[in-house]
């Protein structure tokens, strides 16, 4: 399983690099999803750090802090950010895609949770940064989340990412069984 995730991450990153290269060649910069930076700035919560390891093959290291000292690297931290983060129009489109691709019937209206987990609680099984959410949508997840990569455009995945992240606003840590309720649909 670990191996699988590595491979999938690799594919994702390779794809992102492709996008970046295209952008550098003068494509519409609005779709830029990846910026490669030589500086070692610490990522904020909206970015995911992946280390690209160049050598006989391209590898992705998700947790560079765990590398042993002296590990041979020619590294550039790859900061993945969502070009649509906080973009109201993109979020509105993401909301439509959320219905159109049947995400709603798994994750509940407004992401309140149904067959699949809630998006409203600010909690994430597989990480909540834009890159993590993109990855979840792109490659799917083991407990039934389908892989949408290659089936829908990356741009749409980013819009879905922006929408899904916009739902996450509630602190539900303490349940005192009073207050607001959410309308839910059984099956």
């Amino acid at each position, binding site marked *: 399983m670990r191996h699988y995730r590595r491979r999938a991450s690799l594919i994702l990153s390779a794809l992102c690099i492709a996008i970046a290269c295209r952008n550098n060649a003068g494509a519409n910069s609005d779709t830029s999803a990846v910026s490669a930076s030589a500086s070692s700035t610490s990522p904020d919560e909206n970015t995911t750090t992946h280390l690209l390891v160049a050598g006989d093959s391209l590898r992705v290291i998700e947790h560079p802090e765990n590398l042993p000292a002296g590990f041979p690297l020619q590294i550039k931290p790859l900061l993945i950010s969502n070009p649509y983060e906080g973009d109201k129009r993109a979020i509105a489109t993401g909301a439509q895609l959320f219905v159109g*691709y049947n995400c709603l019937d*798994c994750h509940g209206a407004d992401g309140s949770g149904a067959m699949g987990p809630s998006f409203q609680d600010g909690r994430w099984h597989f990480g909540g940064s834009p890159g993590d959410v993109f990855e979840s949508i792109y490659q799917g997840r083991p407990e039934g989340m389908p892989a949408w990569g290659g089936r829908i455009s990356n741009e749409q995945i980013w819009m879905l990412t922006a929408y899904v992240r916009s739902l996450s606003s509630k602190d539900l840590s303490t349940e005192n069984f009073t207050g607001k309720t959410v309308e839910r649909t059984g099956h």
Partner: protein
Amino acid sequence: MERVLRGCATILPLIAIAACSGGNKAAVVDSTSSADPQATSSAATGTALVSGARIAVAHAGPPGEWQMPAGDYASSRYSELASITPQNVANLRVSWAFSTGVLRGHEGQPLVVANTMYIVTPYPNVSYAIDLAQTGQPLKWKFRPENSQQAIGKACCDVVNRGAAYADGKIFYNLLDGHTVAVDAATGNQVWRTKMGDLSRGETITMAPIVVKGKVIVGSSGGEMGVRGWIAALDAATGKEIWRAYNIGPDKDVKVGPKFKPFYAHDRGKDLGSTSWPGDTWKTGGGAVWGWLSYDPALNLIYHGTSNPGPWNENQRTGDNKWTAAILARDADTGEMVWALQVTPHDMWDYDAVNENILVDLPIKGQTRKVLVHFDRNGFAYTIDRATGEILLAEPFVPMNWSTGIDMATGRPKVVETKKTAQDRNVKDICPSLEGGKNQQPAAFSPQTGLFYVPTNNLCMDFQARAVTYIAGTPFIGGNAPEKGGPGGYRGEFIAWDATTGKKIWGIKEPYPVWGGALATAGGVVFYGTLDGWFKAADARTGKVLWQFKVGSGVVGNPVTYTGPDGKQYVAIYAGIGGDMGLLIAGDVAANLPYDVRERGTTLPDIARWTSWGGELFVFSL
């Protein structure tokens, strides 16, 4: 709604049992003012309320064992054991308990064969053999099948399993990821494992099989995923598929041939399973078989229901949508359809017809009739001739307003125009809700009283249908349907039903939908569990609650009773809230997932105060 109000006006509150409240909203016993004075007096004297009624097929194995999901092919959930009576049931105590190690909805029931209890858990569908003959009930074996994780996210309504069947020294059950397995009952070794469903298209399996003449009968889930529902028979010895019948599509696929003789004229015709759909929509039209199976050896017929048509949005599938939301009778040897009764043609409320079909012989209008009694999601209780599919009687058993009754000439419900759902419209206050007047929670029948004991829901809904695109492996639903409590201020009721007259004899009102099944016993006691975690015993004749115990989690499973090695009568029940109610509707009863915290649901706003997810077997004895 008029019907609802009239129905309620005839209900006279009889006894409020303070002991039942336990700090909770009190359960209240009502007794209908019966039109038949005989019924009232017989309740007092202890004779049968409906005399001359009998179960069509004998209990499987010795009376002290429980070898099939419902105890017998008739789906009666009745036991001849009579040590526990209304007089002594107050002394019932927990004898032992067992954690299944798995949280989430524990629908279904254990089996008991030769002093061994067999349990199947929700996903990952672990099975246990528990040695009842030894103190402390050690395990004989534990079997952990290979079972794809992907199945978790493909199951519409929690990762439930409704149990196993025993035959020929083997335990047969289904895996959520679409496999059927046979396990050696003595060793726990897997005998065979057969892939039956395609998970990538949303086909899971949650139902309990039955074994008929060396064949294991199984059916698919996935009515919310745009599957094409089927039922199939596997060779119990080898796991090889013997026949498979789809419930939608051309006659060849649905096994409609010369034997097919439906009672109503509109069910006759060529390829109705595809021509009653626009274009190719039948290919993703649902009609799954996730409920209970019955079998009549004399007629050699298997009875099963079919699920809702997909998607919920009726606009995308004009026509009757046969054979969804139907009761089907099939030849047990070949799967050929012998009769069909579509109880909700062109369903637009998610009224699956998969609820159990209880096979009994009942005195109706002076004649003993071989019938099948079925409490449908659509709110009607049907008494049907099980040889022909003719409806003898159909009456509402819960508050309802979508239909004014069944047209007895055609067998079709008369639908109220204003309660028809439609794309992009919000149709308000439809009763019952899509959970139905009754859902998977199976009823029981007692030949002693001649009554059916039925766990019911009292919920209504608003229905908002919308256009939806089929995408394999994702939900094919196209609708939201927020639910609320039905008329009367209660959300569930455990009722006693006379299927010869279509009348409720008594009812125990519950604050929540009664999502656990019923057990009837020859001791004159009936058992059921509640969503808020009470396991209750009631007098089969009067509906008086005689005993109750708060188990570790809400009950969505079905009680069974057996004789222990010490000769005593035991009653067993799972505690483990889940299923549609516990996962989708409640919202906030889980506590085990740090990444999935949900706000409470409007339908059951305070359920999480009373229970949390669990997975435990409780066993009681005097």
